[in-house]
C-alpha cells in the first residue's frame, strides 16, 4: 500500500514549489512552464538532493516514487490528449507551400544533424544493448521536436497570434508534433524489436494498422456525437465527459499493449476529436486546470528526480552536453530559418520562426522520458538532453525579443487585428 501521507506531502511540496518558481520565471518574461520545469529539476538530486540529501530522502523516498510516477503519467496522458485536441489541420492549409516546406525542413534538418551527432556519441555514451539505428533515430527525433503548447503560449503572451509569423509558427509546430510522434512510435518499435522484449514486432505492426483504421474510420465518426451534443446543449453532460475520458484511457492502453507507449494513444485520441473551435475550447477548460496545475508539476518533479546534473562529470561530460545544445540549436533554429527564407520569408521573419521552433519545453521531456524508459538513452545522456531542453526553451523569449521586438509586433498586429480574431488558436496552457 502506498504511504498516503508521503504522497500527499509530495504533491503539496511539488505544487507549491512549481507555482513559486513559475511566478519568478514569469517576472523574467519566461513562460510559466519554463519555471515549472526548472522547479522539477530543483526538487531532484541536481539541487535538493545535493544540498539537503536528508530532506530529499524524507520527501522523496525511493519506495514512494512509483506512486508519484503513476500519478504524473496519468497527467501526461490527459495532457497529450489536450495537445492532440488543439492541433488543427486547417492551420497548415492556410499557409500552403511555405508552411509545408518550412515544417518539413524544420524536422529533417535537426533530425539529420542529430543523427550525425549520434555517430560521435554512440561509442562514447551508449552501449551494445542499444542498436545504432535506434540510438541515431532517437537522437534525431529528440533534436527535431517542438513544444507546440509552449510556442502557442509564447505567441499568446506576446500578442503574436494574429501575425503572419505567429500563425506560420503554429502551423509548422503542429506538423512537427505529429511527425515527431510518428517517428518516435517507429523508434519504439525498432528498439523493442532489437531487444526482442514485449510484444512481437509483427503483432505491433498488424495491431497498430488495425488500431489506426479503427480510430480514423469508426471511432472518429462516433466522436462526432460529442460535438453534436455540445452544439445542441451548449455543454456536455457529466456522463459524456466520463465517456470521453474512458476513450482517452482505452486508446492509451491499446497503444501500450501493442508495444508502443501510453502517450501515443492519448495523443491520437486528441487528434481525431472534432475540431469545432467552441467545442475544443470547452473541453480544454474542463480538463486542463487539474492537469496543468496539479498533475503536470508532478511530471516535472518526477523528471527532475531522474535528472542528475552531477552525472555530467568533468570537462568531457560538459563538452558533450555543450555539443548537444549546440547541435540542437543549429539544427532546429538554423534549419527552420533557412527553410523559411527559402520559402520567401524575410530574414527577420525567418529568424523569428527559427527561434520559436527551437523551443522544446515539455514535449522534449516527454520524449526523453520515453527514451529512458525503453532504454535507448543512458541516465547521463538523459540528463544532458534535459539541460538542452531547458536551455533551448529558456532562450526563446529573449532571443525572440531581440529578433522581433514587441513594438514591431504591435505594429503588425494593428494592421491585422481583424484577421487575428479569426485565427485565434486554442492551446493547452
Amino acid at each position, binding site marked *: 500500500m502506498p504511504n498516503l501521507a508521503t504522497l500527499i506531502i509530495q504533491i503539496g511540496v511539488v505544487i507549491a514549489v512549481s507555482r513559486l518558481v513559475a511566478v519568478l520565471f514569469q517576472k523574467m518574461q519566461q513562460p510559466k512552464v519554463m519555471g515549472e520545469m526548472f522547479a522539477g529539476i530543483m526538487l531532484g538530486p541536481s539541487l535538493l538532493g545535493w544540498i539537503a540529501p536528508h530532506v530529499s530522502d524524507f520527501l522523496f523516498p525511493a519506495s514512494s516514487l512509483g506512486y508519484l510516477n503513476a500519478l504524473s503519467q496519468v497527467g501526461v496522458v490527459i495532457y497529450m490528449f489536450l495537445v492532440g485536441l488543439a492541433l488543427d489541420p486547417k492551420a497548415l492549409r492556410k499557409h500552403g507551400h511555405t508552411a509545408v516546406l518550412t515544417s518539413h525542413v524544420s524536422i529533417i534538418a535537426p533530425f539529420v544533424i542529430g*543523427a550525425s551527432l549520434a555517430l560521435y556519441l*554512440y561509442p562514447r*555514451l551508449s*552501449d551494445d544493448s542499444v542498436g545504432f539505428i535506434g540510438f*541515431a533515430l532517437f537522437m534525431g527525433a529528440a533534436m527535431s521536436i517542438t513544444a507546440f503548447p509552449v510556442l502557442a503560449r509564447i505567441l499568446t503572451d506576446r500578442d503574436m497570434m494574429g501575425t503572419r509569423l505567429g500563425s506560420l509558427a503554429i502551423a509548422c509546430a503542429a506538423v512537427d508534433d505529429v511527425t515527431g510522434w510518428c517517428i518516435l512510435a517507429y523508434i519504439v518499435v525498432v528498439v523493442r524489436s532489437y531487444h526482442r522484449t514485449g510484444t512481437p514486432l509483427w503483432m505491433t505492426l498488424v495491431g497498430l494498422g488495425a488500431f489506426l483504421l479503427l480510430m480514423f474510420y469508426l471511432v472518429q465518426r462516433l466522436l462526432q456525437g460529442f460535438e453534436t451534443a455540445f452544439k445542441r446543449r451548449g455543454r456536455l453532460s457529466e456522463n459524456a465527459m466520463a465517456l470521453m475520458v474512458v476513450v482517452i484511457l482505452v486508446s492509451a492502453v491499446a497503444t501500450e499493449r501493442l508495444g508502443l507507449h501510453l502517450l501515443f494513444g492519448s495523443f491520437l485520441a486528441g487528434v481525431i476529436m472534432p475540431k469545432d473551435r467552441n467545442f475544443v475550447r470547452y473541453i480544454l477548460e474542463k480538463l486542463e486546470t487539474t492537469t496543468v496545475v496539479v498533475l503536470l508539476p508532478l511530471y516535472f518533479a518526477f523528471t527532475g528526480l531522474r535528472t542528475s546534473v552531477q552525472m555530467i562529470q568533468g570537462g568531457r561530460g560538459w563538452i558533450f552536453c555543450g555539443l548537444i545544445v549546440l547541435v540542437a540549436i543549429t539544427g532546429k533554429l538554423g534549419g527552420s530559418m533557412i527553410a523559411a527564407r527559402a520559402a520567401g520569408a524575410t530574414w527577420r521573419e525567418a529568424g523569428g520562426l527559427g527561434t520559436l521552433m527551437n523551443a522544446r519545453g515539455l514535449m522534449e521531456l516527454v520524449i526523453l522520458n520515453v527514451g529512458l524508459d525503453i532504454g535507448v538513452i*543512458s*541516465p547521463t545522456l538523459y540528463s544532458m538532453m534535459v539541460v538542452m531542453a531547458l536551455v533551448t526553451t529558456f532562450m526563446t523569449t529573449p532571443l525572440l525579443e531581440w529578433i522581433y521586438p514587441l513594438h514591431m509586433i504591435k505594429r503588425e498586429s494593428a494592421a491585422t487585428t481583424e484577421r487575428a480574431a479569426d485565427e485565434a488558436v486554442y492551446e493547452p496552457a
Partner: protein
Amino acid sequence: MSNRRLILAYVFLVGIPLLGLIGIVRRGQHLQAPVSVGGSWNVEADFSPWSGKPCVDVLGSGKQPLLNISQSGDRLVLALNNPQSTVIAGSIRGTVLTAGTQDSADSAGGSCAASQAIGITAELNKDGQQHALTGTFKLNTCRACAPVSFHAVRQAGPKRGEQ
C-alpha cells in the same frame, strides 16, 4: 512561391539531407559501443575469509542484489547495496570491468573499514541472453583482508530508467 522553386527547395533542403541520413545509418552500423553491464546484479561470494576482520562490515552484510551498475558508454557508477550504500566509479574496457580507488594507498596500517576503498575487477561472460561477471572484491587500503572472488548474474528486466 513557384512550383519550380518549390521542387528545387525540396530537393536541396529535404532530399539531400534524407540521402545524408541513409549514409549516416550505414556508417553507424559499423560502430562498436562498449559492452553493456548496466543493471542490477545478484552477487554470489564467500566472504568467510573476512570473518572476524573489520572489512567484513564493508561488504559482508550486504543484501541482494548487491550491485547496481549505471552505465554511460565506458563510464560506470557502481552502487553497492551494503550498509554504507557505497558508490564507486569504474569503467569497462572490452569485457574487463574495473572500479574503485587505485592501490596507491595500500599499506599495512591502512583502514580495513573504509567502504570507499573497495576495488572491483571483473570479466564479463556472455552466454546467449545470460550475462555473468566473474571477478574479485578487495579493499585497497587493507592488506589484512585478502581479495574475495565473486560471481554475479544480471537480473532480468529493464536495465535503464528504473527507479
